[in-house]
Structure formats: structure tokens, C-alpha cells
């Protein structure tokens, strides 16, 4: 038995690189393009790693958990190279088309199935592809534990955490008993890069892959069949802002002069308009 008494789960998603993001003809996210770890998930992982630094490496264990196609392994290995200890992937064609409700059901069931009594679960505030911020809170509801979203500061106090969350025009501080789930914002920390000392483990560590059967769910409970919402149609939006004009010149002074010139033209144009009117 491991004597690592403090167990942390981090939910991680892989997302398309923003410039490559596109829809399939069914209106779903095209997952075949180049992708990366969702930035908010990286902040969640960093929060976990900082907690591990606080509590002590010898006492702490970080599990990174993801749901998605086999190529999500890329982000899980990246997480291992940053200092996570175990990686789990829930991967199954039956999961295709899951909305946030079905995703949380699958992830929540998987976490219970793992049988690890996690002390804390971290998730990114939201993903940059789905942009919903739903999955974290919905997994917490499944697990029956409290959650706080928009967390940007965490103080570990043993059996509870004191967290500060973003609020319009300020912030709010809560005392939260553990176990709990926290969703982490991008203002919370600065994620570290890969560490040389984890490189070999990151390469060799087995990533345990679970199927829908393995966690005891049926095809009807997940994927599009298990999703209350559906995408009815997708339309393009057009933007009307012209592209940025970059100021040019040999020196900074030249660039600023060019800006002054451009601004003067706008001022004169509006004066001329005022005279006409």
C-alpha cells in the first residue's frame, strides 16, 4: 500500500489549437486537428502541483483524468512530465457527442469506479473549445461534494481550504471542507513547464484506458443518446472590424509619429463632417 495519504485528482481536456478550431459537418468539434492541453486545465494542474509542493511530495499523489479520443494521451503525458503521478483516460466511441451532462456523468462515474478517495478534485474553470464551465460543477454534484468555481487563490488548512474566487467587481472568500472540487481560473498561477526529472516516467508510465463498459455505464447513458441537449444547427458569424494597421518606421519615434498622423487625420475628418452637418 502506498503511504501517500493525500490524493488529488485533476480533470484535463485536450482542445484544438485556437487557430485550427473548426466544426465537422455534424456541427461538432473537429478533433482531428493539432491540439494542446486546455489552458485552464493547465492552471488546474499547476494548482495541484503547488498543493503537492505545500503538503510534501512524499505524502501526495496526483491523478490526471481525461475523457476523449486516444490522442488525448498527449496531454496526459504532458501532465506526467510536469509532475503528475498517474494518468487515466476514459475513451470509447460510445462517448461521442456527449454534452456536459453526459460528460459529467461519465467522469463522475469513472472517479467513483477508481475507488480512490480523492481529498480534492481540480478542474479548469472552462475549456476554450466548449466554453461552458459546466463540467466541474456537474462532476461535483455527481460526487456529492461541494465545489467553488472561478477560484484564483487557495490556502490549504489540513481538513479544509480557504479559497478566493473572482466576482464581478471584486472577490469572495469561502472556507470549504474537503473533499471538494475547485475550478481554477487563468489568473490563479503560472503553470510550470515539463521537468527533466519526470521525463522518463512521463514517457514510460502506462496510461490506464477505461471503456464505458469498464465503468458500468451503457451506451444509452452517455454520448449523444445520454445527452439532454443537441446541436440543432451551426451558423457562421462575420466580423466587421477591419484589420489592425501597424505603425511602421525605423525608430519608435517614427512609429509614434505615424500614429499621431493617423489620429490627426481622424480628428480632421470628424471636424469636416461636423461642418457639413
Amino acid at each position, binding site marked *: 500500500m502506498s503511504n501517500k495519504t493525500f490524493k488529488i485528482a485533476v480533470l484535463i481536456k485536450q482542445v484544438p489549437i485556437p487557430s485550427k478550431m473548426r466544426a465537422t459537418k455534424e456541427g461538432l468539434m473537429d478533433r482531428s486537428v493539432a491540439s494542446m492541453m486546455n489552458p485552464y486545465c493547465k492552471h488546474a494542474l499547476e494548482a495541484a502541483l503547488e498543493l503537492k509542493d505545500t503538503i510534501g511530495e512524499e505524502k501526495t499523489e496526483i491523478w490526471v483524468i481525461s475523457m476523449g479520443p486516444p490522442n488525448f494521451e498527449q496531454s496526459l503525458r504532458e501532465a506526467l512530465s510536469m509532475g503528475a503521478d498517474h494518468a487515466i483516460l476514459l475513451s470509447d466511441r460510445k462517448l461521442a457527442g456527449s454534452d456536459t451532462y453526459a460528460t459529467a456523468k461519465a467522469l463522475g462515474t469513472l472517479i467513483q469506479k477508481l475507488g480512490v478517495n480523492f481529498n480534492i478534485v481540480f478542474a479548469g474553470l472552462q475549456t476554450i473549445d466548449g466554453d461552458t464551465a459546466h463540467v466541474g460543477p456537474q462532476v461535483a454534484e455527481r460526487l456529492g461534494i461541494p465545489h467553488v468555481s472561478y477560484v484564483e487563490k487557495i490556502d490549504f488548512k489540513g481538513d479544509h481550504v480557504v479559497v478566493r474566487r473572482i466576482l464581478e*467587481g471584486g472577490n469572495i472568500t469561502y472556507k470549504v*471542507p474537503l473533499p471538494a472540487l475547485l475550478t481554477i481560473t487563468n489568473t490563479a498561477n503560472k503553470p510550470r513547464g515539463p521537468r527533466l526529472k519526470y521525463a522518463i516516467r512521463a514517457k514510460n508510465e502506462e496510461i490506464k484506458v477505461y471503456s464505458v463498459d469498464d465503468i458500468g455505464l451503457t451506451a444509452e447513458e452517455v454520448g449523444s443518446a445520454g445527452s439532454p441537449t443537441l446541436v440543432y444547427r451551426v451558423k457562421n458569424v462575420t466580423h466587421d472590424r477591419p484589420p489592425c494597421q501597424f505603425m511602421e518606421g525605423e525608430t*519608435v519615434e517614427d512609429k509614434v509619429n505615424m500614429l499621431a498622423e493617423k489620429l490627426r487625420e481622424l480628428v480632421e475628418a470628424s471636424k469636416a463632417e461636423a461642418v457639413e452637418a
Partner: protein
Amino acid sequence: MSTNEKKQRNEEEYEIVDRSKQGVEGVFIWGQMMPNNEPHDVTFELLGEGRKIADKLNTKLTAVLIGYNVKKWAQELIYRGADRVIVVDHEKLKTFAVLPYTQVIYDIIQKEKPEVFLFGATTFGRELAPRVAARVHTGLSADCTMFDVGDYVNRRKKLKFENVLYMVRPSFGESKLATILCPLNFPQMASARPGIFIPLKRDETRKGEIIDFTPEFSEKDFVVDVLDVNVGGGEQIDLKGAKIIVSGGRGVGEKGFDMLREFVKVLREKGYKAELGASRGAVEAGYISSKHQVGQTGTTVRPDVYIAIGISGAIQHLAGMKESKYIIAINKDHEAPIFSVATFGIVGDYQDVVPIMIEKVRKGEMVFPVTQ
């Protein structure tokens, strides 16, 4: 027979499911209160849009008002469009906490069986709505910018649903609009992006019903304690009224903000209504107070000229300033997203660029296109 006609003939044989006749009724909104015990603006926006949806569905609009000493707002919500206001007034609900608020809304949904339930996509709304949706086992569409009511035909199940809520939201990095439906579960839930929907004119002749509701709490709803609430206060600054906003980001550093203050001062000396803005990056780093923050969780501004200095242009920042008439961006990274909305860009170190700009403004060599 064309395929279209064929389709139509087939559909005539489909069983019709009228969403508004399945024992569920009414459009509900969460009337969100802020820590100063005033409603968030989005509450009035939801009442405006909720009214439209309720009229299309020929049903009532109900606002759910949760907090402590909030009943005094119930009448106001009626003047702003509600037919009914359910008030849950309890000392323990004074400050937002997701567990008890989820339980309250869950209880109300069980009792009232609404057809539609809308939340503001504020930080509270986006923490609360998903937990509620998971507890009542329904779908949720995030951050919607448009709603409508219409039909939905499911060819596989040979069903035609009438009076379904169309929930439209930006997706794929705001490059597309997706219409989301939730045809089988109740309520149809969505969060609505603040600042998009139009509130109704306040009308004191509007009549409505105010209903007290006492939820059943258990101890586990109160395991999380609120320790501190920190919102603005102190000196007020007028970002909304400014014609020019000089805004600094994390790239500016603490000393840099002194330079930007100087910039604002010089602009004011020249007669411009100028104000100092900031990104959350700068606020978070402790360079400046959150009152200056522009963006999704700060102030939404649309000045004549917005000067973004050392700001990368995260989507949450752009949300609060991209409607500005002219945007000038100064950033040393030519790929910074701020340039995607900028009118004019200078790639360079602000420490080189800004002093020259200040000097030129002082000498009257740099003027700005502002309206009166």
C-alpha cells in the same frame, strides 16, 4: 415528388409533442442579487428577454429572488416584467453560496415544474446553473446571446416537437453561432450573457403576484462558510463616462502604472475626459485596484479611444472593450490577440513608446478623435 415534399408529407404523420402541454409551465428566471443587495443588471435583462419568450409560449414569467432582506425588490421585478416573484428570504442566504442556492432552486423546480429556466451567465450564474441542471437531470446551454421558440422534428423517432426553446450561443472561439435544443428534458435551461438582452421600461402599472417560499434545508447545504466579500468601495472612478481610456496590463508592471497615470493626467490637462483602466492581469498582480478593471468581470466600456498597453487581449478583456470606437494597442508581441481588435497597433516596449506619446500630447502634437 421532390424530396422536400416527401419530407413534409412524412412529417405530417409524425406524432406531435407540444412542449407547453406536458404538465410543465412557465418561464422562470433567477433574479440575481449582488453583495450590495441590489439586483445585478442581468436580472432586468433576463426579465426583458424572459417576457418575450413567455409571450411566445403564451405563459407566465416568474422571477426567483433569493437572499436576505430582498423582498423589497419583488415589486420592482414586477415593474420590470415579471408576472410572479417567488421570494426566498433567509438570513443564511445573505451571500451567494452554491450549495444552498442549488437546493432552493431545485425545490422550486420540483414544485413548480417550469418549462424554461434562465440564469445570467455571471460568475455566480455559471457556478450555480450547472449544479442545478445536474441535480434536476436536465440539459443546460451556456452563455447564450439569442433565444427563440420553434419546432423540432426528430425523424428517427418520428416526433415533431412544438414550442421548443432555441438557445443560441457563440461557439468555436466566437466564430460560429450554435443553436442548442433540449427537447426531452425539463426545464429547458440556459445561461444568458450579460449586457446582451434588453430590459423592459419600468412600468408601475404592471401587476403581479408575490409568493413567499420556504425551502427545506439540510445541514449539508451549509458546509461551506463565507469568510469575506470584497467589492469595490472607496473612491469611485468613471470608466463608463470617459472618452479616452488608458489601460494597462500585466506587461506594464507597478512602475509602469505611474507612467500611465501621468499619461491620463496630461490628457486631462489637454481637456480630454480620460480615465485609467486595467486588465485583470494587472489587478491580480496587485499593480492597481480592481475598480479600474475592464472586461467581463470588470466594467464594460465603449470610449472613443481605448489605449491598451501591455495587455494581451484575452477574450474576457475584449468582452469589455471591443466596442470602443478606436482601439490603439501597444504590445511587444506582434501576435498578441489584442491586435485582432485594434485599429492601430504599435509593436514595441511600452517603456519606449509611451513616454514619446506623453511628450507629443503635452506639446499638442498628438490629438485624439473624441466626440463632445
